[in-house]
Each structure stands twice: as C-alpha cells, then as structure tokens.
C-alpha cells in the first residue's frame, strides 16, 4: 500500500509516456494531453502546500520575534493583498492587481537582473587569474570574446576572426559534448526513477 502501489504507478506512468512518444495516433495524442493535465492539476493543489509553508515560516518568525521579524509582516501583507485583489477585483490590465505587478514586481525583477552587470565584473576580476593552464584558457577566451566590442584598429579585424572561430569551433564542440553527457546522465536518472531504484523523493517511514 505504502510502497508497492506508488512504485507501480511510477513504472507504468513512465513506461506509457515513453512509448506514447513514438505513436502518432490521435488516441495517443489525446492521452498525452490528458497526462500533462494531471501534472498541471497536481501542481495546482501542491501550490496550497507551498503557500501554507510560506505562511507558517513567516508566522513562526513573527511569533518568535526572530531578527528583523517585522519584515515578515510585509511579506504576508503582500501575499494576502495580491490574493484578495486577484479573487475579488479581477486581474485584467489596469486593475490594482496588475498595477502592483507592474510597479512592484517588474522593477524589482528588472533590477535584480541588472545586478548581474556588476556581478559579471566582480566575478571576472576575482576568478580570471592565470593560476593554472586550464584557468588561463578560460581567462583568455573570455577576454578575446569581450575584445570584440573594443575598437583596436587593425587588431580588431583579426580579433573578430579569432572570436568567430572560437564560437563556431571549440565552443560548439564543448556545448555539444556537454549536451550529450547531460542527455545520458538524465536518461539514466529517469530510468532509475521509473525502475524504482531511485526513490529518495518518496522519503522513508
């Protein structure tokens, strides 16, 4: 009950979906769409657990007066205001729900993203040291690629050629090899799950 049936479900579900991929019949299409809906629906209900976890953690921080606990009130406020607005005043453009999204979420996410401009620089400064041959290769390629944007008269012409060679030859080779490795590892992992060998996601009891 606690183990066999879930493992059976994983096995059958996995086998079925893997085979379905090779069957173009309409029936198989429809089943595929239906199965994806299962994923979506389980996800929807799981979100309840997510919000609950979030709520509990914040409340706990507030009750225990953990450092900076006051900010958790803001989190909860934001959460509930969005949910209430969303449920009762609609989510069309121009509604407060969307205004909060556009003027609170969007600028913050854009700025977080923009922070990367600084972090790329600091990471390059700290990490790109010619300690070993491998590190030197990493450093030099990065520099060559970055030089594309710096006018150096005739050198630029040459640099362009080198840069585009790097991108189309070694870079291409690296990307493909990594992809293949990931493919093998991923498929092996998926098989382990389907065969019930890999079950840490199911916990213990």
């Amino acid at each position, binding site marked *: 009950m*606690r183990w066999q049936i*879930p493992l059976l*479900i*994983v096995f*059958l*579900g*996995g086998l*079925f*979906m893997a085979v379905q991929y090779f069957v173009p019949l309409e029936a198989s299409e429809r089943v595929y769409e239906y199965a*994806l*809906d299962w*994923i979506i*629906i*389980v996800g*929807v*209900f*799981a979100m*309840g*657990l997510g*919000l609950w976890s*979030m709520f509990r953690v914040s409340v706990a921080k507030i009750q225990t007066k953990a450092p900076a606990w006051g*900010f958790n009130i803001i*989190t909860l*406020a*934001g*959460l509930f205001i*969005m949910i209430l607005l*969303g449920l009762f005043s609609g*989510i069309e453009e121009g509604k407060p729900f969307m205004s909060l999204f556009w003027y*609170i*979420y969007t*600028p913050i996410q854009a700025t977080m993203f*923009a*922070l*990367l401009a*600084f972090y*790329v620089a600091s990471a*390059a400064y700290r990490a790109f040291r010619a300690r070993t*041959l*491998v590190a030197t*290769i990493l450093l*030099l*390629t990065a520099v060559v*690629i970055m030089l594309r*944007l710096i006018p150096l008269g005739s050198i630029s012409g040459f640099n362009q050629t080198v840069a585009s060679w790097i*991108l189309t030859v*070694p870079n*291409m*080779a*690296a990307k*493909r*090899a990594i992809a*293949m*490795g990931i*493919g093998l590892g*991923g*498929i092996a992992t*998926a098989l382990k799950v*389907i065969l019930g060998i890999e079950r840490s*996601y199911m916990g213990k009891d």
Partner: protein
Amino acid sequence: METGEILWNGLAVFLTLCIFSILYKDNPFYKLAEHLVVGVSAGYFAIILYYNSFIPKVWVPIVQQHQWYYIVPTVLGILMWTRFSRKRSWISRYPISAYMGIGMGVAIPVAMQALILVPLSATMQPMGFTSLALFNNLLVAAGVLCALVYFFFSKEHVGTFGALAKIGIWTLMVGFGAGFGLTVMGRVSLLIERFIFMKDYFTNILGL
C-alpha cells in the same frame, strides 16, 4: 505624467534603488523590497495558477463540461493535502508518483532526441584538410570526442586516455570562457535600461 503615474513610478524607482543598495551591503531598504516582492510575487503566481490552471483544467471540465474523467487527477491533487497530517502524509506518494512517472516518461525520449541525437548528427559533417571549412568540421568532431572522454567516470584518466581527457577539459574551458564573454553585453544592456528608466523619471518630475 499625472499624479497617479508619478506616484506609481516613484514607487518603482524607490524599489529599484532599494535593490541596488544590496551592492553596498545588506540593509533595511533591501530587506523591505525583498520581503515585499516575495509576498507579492507568490500571491501573483497563486492567482495566475488559479485562473490559468484551476479554472480551465479542473472547474470547467468537471463542473461545466462534465468530463468526469478529470475527477481522477483532481482527486490525486487533493490527496497532496494529506501532507497536512503527519499520520496520513504517506498517501501523498500517490499523486507524487504519478507526477514523477509521467514527468520521467516524457523526459526520456525527448532527452534522447534533443540532447543526444540532434547534436550527434549535427556533428557528422564532411571533414578533411583541403579547405578551412572541412578542417574546422574535423576539429569540432575531435573536440566533441575529447570532451566526451573527459566525462568518462569508470576509467582512470591516465596515459593517452588522460591526454585526450585533458584536451577535452581545455575544449570545455574555451566553451565556458566564450559563454562568459558573450554574456557581458546583454547584462550591461539591462543595467543601461535601469539607469535610463530612473533618469527619465527624475527628468520628468523635475520638469527638466
């Protein structure tokens, strides 16, 4: 801009500055923006999930179209909530195993196609020494081979094998360097966009 817009955009600018302040060090302004956006985004996501997934996938099919077979996944979904109780939480394995099974099954052939066969067949190009193009094809193929050797786990990297693995890791590093170098431009553009956003706002309200 009319007042409403000024206030809203003012908020946006303020939050932008709050986030940038983390570059100096952690501070109340960053904490404020952070905790605010966590709540708002979670609420936003939940509501979007409700309207774009719950309504069309659960409510409409069952309550309106009476497609009863949608009760199965819905019951599974509800079973997720057995996790609220310590004793019954094992029941949530049923929906989770269904989720996993489907997910893994879908993933296998897709990975085999997109991650292995597509790059593999793309690398099968005519090679040779007569022209640069042919020679580059040769180099790409060789690079892929060596990089794959690097990924060998069950064989010690010594001798010729080790040498190939070394060339492999060099190839990988060239790839990483290139990836890093290419990204700087895009990230800087995002920063430019933020700066212009703030500049425009201040020029606007100061009527410059």
